[in-house]
């Protein structure tokens, strides 16, 4: 876990409430995101994490019955009062959960955003496309076939293409919404390396279900539960043995949401759970729920990817 580079706040959110129709999804949350940091938002499904990201670049407006109140400031400017909403969206890069390759050539996929911004010079587009694809760790695989259709790439390649597309308009904030749910662990790790590099240039907000991913990457983490912030702060604190809230500990250790444990009450203080918790070892694509059932009988395997299991362990050991 690196220390933050600087303390200036890039994003400030104050009392944000989001409602879909009559149902309120986010109940007034407040947090700051400093610059050049990887900021993780963890929490179970339906806790409003994706809607929160969509508020940042104002694409929540495209959802039919969504309403958002509160203040969102990026670089000190209220997002609702910017001069051009398209400039705002170019400042915030967004990566969706499911990989999307636009039905254009790979070159046009990455050049789409600069062309929409008005850049048409062929030379500069070439440089930009190459640079973005290199940053997204996709260049070597596609440099000979930049004219082939973006939709024909594999899932992992399409997700990297999406990242290249997000980088092509040079955002100062990159938002990733559960980017790894539809791709294999090897590509996930490559993208995580990319994110660690990108941190030098921009702020990264990472919404993820994978608790260990947050632990690996983020400097600060925020835990959302049922539309409210349970805890936010430096990652070391959140993933340690003594976070501020018991709920955080339970969620990180996969105990929260387990009916049996809810009946048993504060089972987390049991010595068994503490002793056998080993960071990151029993990660599976289905989430951190496995990590609590840690005696020898329940050694989960990263299904279908035996070689990936080895490389995951090796990665953790670094």
């Amino acid at each position, binding site marked *: 876990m690196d220390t933050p580079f600087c303390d200036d706040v890039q994003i400030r959110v104050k009392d944000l409430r989001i409602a879909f129709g009559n149902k309120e999804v986010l109940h007034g949350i407040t947090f700051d995101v400093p610059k050049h940091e990887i900021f993780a938002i963890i929490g179970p499904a339906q806790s409003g994490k994706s809607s929160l990201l969509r508020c940042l670049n104002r694409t929540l407006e495209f959802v039919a019955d969504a309403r958002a109140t509160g203040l969102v400031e990026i670089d000190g400017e209220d997002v609702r009062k910017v001069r051009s909403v398209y400039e705002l969206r170019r400042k915030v890069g967004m990566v969706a959960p499911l990989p999307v390759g636009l039905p254009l050539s790979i070159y046009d996929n990455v050049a789409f955003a600069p062309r929409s911004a*008005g850049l048409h010079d062929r030379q500069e587009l070439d440089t*930009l496309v190459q*640079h973005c694809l290199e940053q997204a760790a996709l260049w070597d695989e596609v440099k000979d076939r930049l004219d082939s259709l973006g939709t024909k790439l594999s899932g992992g390649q399409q997700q990297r293409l999406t990242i290249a597309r997000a980088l092509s308009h*040079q955002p100062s904030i990159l938002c990733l919404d559960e980017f790894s749910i539809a791709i294999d662990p090897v590509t996930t790790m490559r993208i995580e390396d990319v994110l660690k590099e990108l941190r030098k*240039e921009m702020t990264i907000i990472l919404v993820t279900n994978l608790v260990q991913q947050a632990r690996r990457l983020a400097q600060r983490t925020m835990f959302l539960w049922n539309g409210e912030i349970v805890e936010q702060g430096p990652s070391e604190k959140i993933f340690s043995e003594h976070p501020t809230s018991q709920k955080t500990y339970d969620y990180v250790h996969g105990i929260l949401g387990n009916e049996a444990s809810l009946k048993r009450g504060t089972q987390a203080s049991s010595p068994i759970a503490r002793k056998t918790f080993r960071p990151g070892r029993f990660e599976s694509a289905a989430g951190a729920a496995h990590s609590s059932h840690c005696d020898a009988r329940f050694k989960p395997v990263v299904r279908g990817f035996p070689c990936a299991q080895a490389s995951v362990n090796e990665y953790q050991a670094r």
Partner: protein
Amino acid sequence: MDQEVLELPQTARPGPAKEPGRTALARARSRRQWELGFETALEWLIRLCGISAILFVFGIFAFVLREGASFLFSSKFSLTQFLFSIEWYPTSMSNVRYGVLALIVGTGSVTILAMVIAVPFGLGAAIFLSEFCGGRLKETLKIVIELLAAIPSVVWGFIGISVMNPVIQTVFRVPVGLNVMNGATLLALMSVPIMVSIGEDALKAVPDSYREAALAMGATRWQTITRVLLPAAKNGLLAAVLLGVGRAVGETMAVLMATGHAVKIPHSVFDPVRTLTATIAAELGEASVGSSHYQVLFIIGILLFSITFVVNLSADLIVKGVRKG
């Protein structure tokens, strides 16, 4: 460890390769402003086109009403006499009467007989295509039915005169072959494609789990269809029939050519009749512009517009109910 990065000023970005992209984007911003203006104008044009559909519907009603309005609201016109009298003598020298009941009955009789023929065949074909047919046969049949739908109504009218006329005369041994039967057969053949395509959509929308459940209980195919699928798809099938009715009521050329020219209430299916649509088409050319005959024809047009409006509206509401539920 990361000393060199800590020393960077906060807003600058490292890396020489980034610089060309940055300044290029800044230059592009001004061109983009110009493009934005063009886009806003284009978007207003698109909005205008969107609203135009409403304008056209109102326009049709308004202009048709306009031509018939002065007679419609004058004292010489009585709505009850118009709708309920069978005496249609627009060109009489002495006693001009405008009663369209015979015409309404004409339209009604042809439409009802056409539906009596078309509904079993149309629904039967829809069931056949959806349940008993697969792959290439289905594709081929669908294409043939689509081509059936494309035949223009004047060609159907011609078929009515040249083919159906002698056939009806010989098969049913009646003196005149241009009658309700002729028109109804043509209308049936014209409405069947709509019924088949929408009916097949409705049957396709019934989930496979219904079919599988019926099969699991040992039902025969026919029982599955009559007791499970038809009730489940009844909204869509009803909409299909209504749309077929709408098409039949609004049809002009085929009935003009094939139903004969008698403005009387028919006593059998082999009597000639005249429909509302055929009356307008046949007499508009002879009525002088602005005369009361001319205006009454426009009023008949308003009547037709209202009938088809109601039929199509109900079909659309039912179809929307199908798509949602």
